[in-house]
């Protein structure tokens, strides 16, 4: 981590609104995530969960607001943030093997033009060991099961050795063994003081897996420790479907 941090707040978002083709999809997001927490992000489909983390990383433009990572703009603090995208976002038929995918996590450190050296390869292999995929290092990625593909993505993020991890639906469509492995990994990361934000779809497991939760549906409904915030009332407000007004208003704006 070459850049120094400015404060101890891993993620702070202020007054952020995201619009897609003029239609607002996230309204006035304001939140602070404390260090060393496993944070679950929940909400109905289309509520803006993926949008939130993509906006943090600058993959989607913001209509308003700012984001700070450890007190500095995200662009300065990239090396502090690791990303695990949704599995569906890549073509798994691509001619590349598992180890080469994991090495991609190190491209930021390797820099332009240069090839990965032995040290980098060793880091990649260690990352693969942490997700129990070292035996698959030379396997082409189309030959992997869903759970194995997910683990490859995780290994890539681990190779980045970041302080904050943003993960988009890592638990979706994986087998029980992979789910256990991911939980274990998340626990390890937390015990090392890392902060992990995970977009999650399964409400049942939130209290088991996470200690902090962000509940959103086009805007932040509630955020805070799971024990305090993950209540029936908040669930009702998040999933209750009373959002027709906001959606209608968003429609009206987009039609102008």
């Amino acid at each position, binding site marked *: 981590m070459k850049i120094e941090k400015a404060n101890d707040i891993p993620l702070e978002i202020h007054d952020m609104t995201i619009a897609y083709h003029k239609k607002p999809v996230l*309204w*006035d997001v304001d939140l602070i995530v404390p260090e060393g927490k496993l944070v679950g992000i929940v909400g109905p489909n289309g509520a803006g969960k993926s949008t939130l983390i993509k906006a943090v990383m600058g993959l989607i433009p913001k209509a308003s607001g700012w984001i700070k990572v450890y007190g500095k703009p995200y662009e300065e603090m990239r090396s502090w943030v690791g990303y695990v995208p949704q599995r569906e976002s890549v073509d798994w*038929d691509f001619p590349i093997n598992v180890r080469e995918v994991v090495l991609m996590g190190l491209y930021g450190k390797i820099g332009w033009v240069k090839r990965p050296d032995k040290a980098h390869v060793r880091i990649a292999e260690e990352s693969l060991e942490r997700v129990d995929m070292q035996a698959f290092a030379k396997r082409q990625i189309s030959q992997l099961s869903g759970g194995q593909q997910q683990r490859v993505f995780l290994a890539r993020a681990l190779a980045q050795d970041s302080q904050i991890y943003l993960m988009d639906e890592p638990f979706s469509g994986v087998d029980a063994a992979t789910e256990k492995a991911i939980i274990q990994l998340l626990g390890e990361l937390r015990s090392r003081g890392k902060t992990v934000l995970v977009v999650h779809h399964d409400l049942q497991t939130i209290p088991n897996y996470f200690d902090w939760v962000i509940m959103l549906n086009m*805007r*932040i409904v509630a955020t805070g420790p799971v024990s305090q915030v993950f209540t029936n009332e908040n669930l009702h407000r998040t999933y209750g479907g*009373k959002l027709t*007004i906001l959606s209608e208003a968003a429609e*009206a*704006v987009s039609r*102008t």
Partner: protein
Amino acid sequence: MDQLATFWIILTGALASASCALLGTYLVLRKMSLIGDAISHSVLAGIAMAYWLSGSRSILPMFIGASSFGVIAALLIESLNKKWRIYEDASIGIVFTALFAFGVLLISNFAGQIDLDQECVLYGEIAYTPWDLLAFKGVNLGPRAVWLLGFVLLLDVLMVVLFYKELMLASFDPAMAVSLGISSTAIHYILMTAVSMTTVAAFESVGAILVVAMLIVPGATAYLLTDRLKVMLVLSVAVGVASAVIGYYLAGLWDSSIAGAMTITAGGLFALAFLLSPKYGILGKSLHQFKLGIRYAADHMLLTLSREAESQTIPVRSRRQLLALSNATAIQARFALMQNVRAGFIGRANGDLTLTDAGKRAAISLLQGHRLWETFLNEKVGLPSDHIHEAANRMEHFLDERLKHDIIEEIGGRRKDPHGKDIPETGDEASR
């Protein structure tokens, strides 16, 4: 060139364009524009083979043989994609280039034996159609191409009419089509066969370029202009025919290929639709933004006047003063005033401009919308009270009665907004 010959040429082009544009609308809708492109390239191989094997230009065998190559192309693309797991766009590229290359090879190799050459393939011999006449029992019936294309157009129209519901369902809602017992695959191949036959018929007169252009461009143009399928089909054909007519005269002006000129014309019409479209075109969007600005200014004007009336400051006297108070551009402010006057919201009283009763109600409605939205944002969305004014300023113009009614229900009929001001009632809510 005499008038009759000109007429035949234009008619040929128009018929070819009309058929292609009609079918092409479906291709554009189903995101199959490039499969249409592939089919029209592939039929060349069929035409060349048919000529080579039959040694004649007799219509039926050539037609059937050549059209089947189009369907073969569609089948090959499917199987490359599904069986060999090749990406769809790559499958299209592989099939059409291979078949087209094969066709060109046949033509160049057997140039003497086949009545086609490479250039003819591309832009046809439309200039020769008036003299390629169809004779029946010694009676001159007009050019062969016109009869052929007319017949094909008829078939295409018949197909569209007969299968209108099925085509529409299969294109927009395949799941529902299946549940109603309509086979999407059957519809797909019926469409592909029709496209093949049409391109074969058009090929000889207008060549490959025009066929491809007419399959895609008129349909896309119509798609920009309307959302209704029937209108789209009619517009598409209209654009196709217009391109043919205008293109002919342009070709004369530029002394060049007629098919090429028709293509450029179609492109020009598309560009026009694109630029002027209020949603998508640069010009259209600017115009739309301008009109929106007028609406904002008009609403703002009403609110200003009503606030003055409330707080009893000096009422605005002259037009100039009213316009000066507006924060829109001068032109927009003028239009805004005109709009308000026309709507009966602003009128003259003793030489001053003031709010009419209708205007007062409109202003109250706007204010209600603004404060309702602020309350909603503050209480239901959880935004702090210093964040809501700007948002409400934007939203107040777009809250219709129904939305306002919903919000009132949602906030439980509160009377004061987060800043402590009263939320006015317009009296319309009671009628719900």
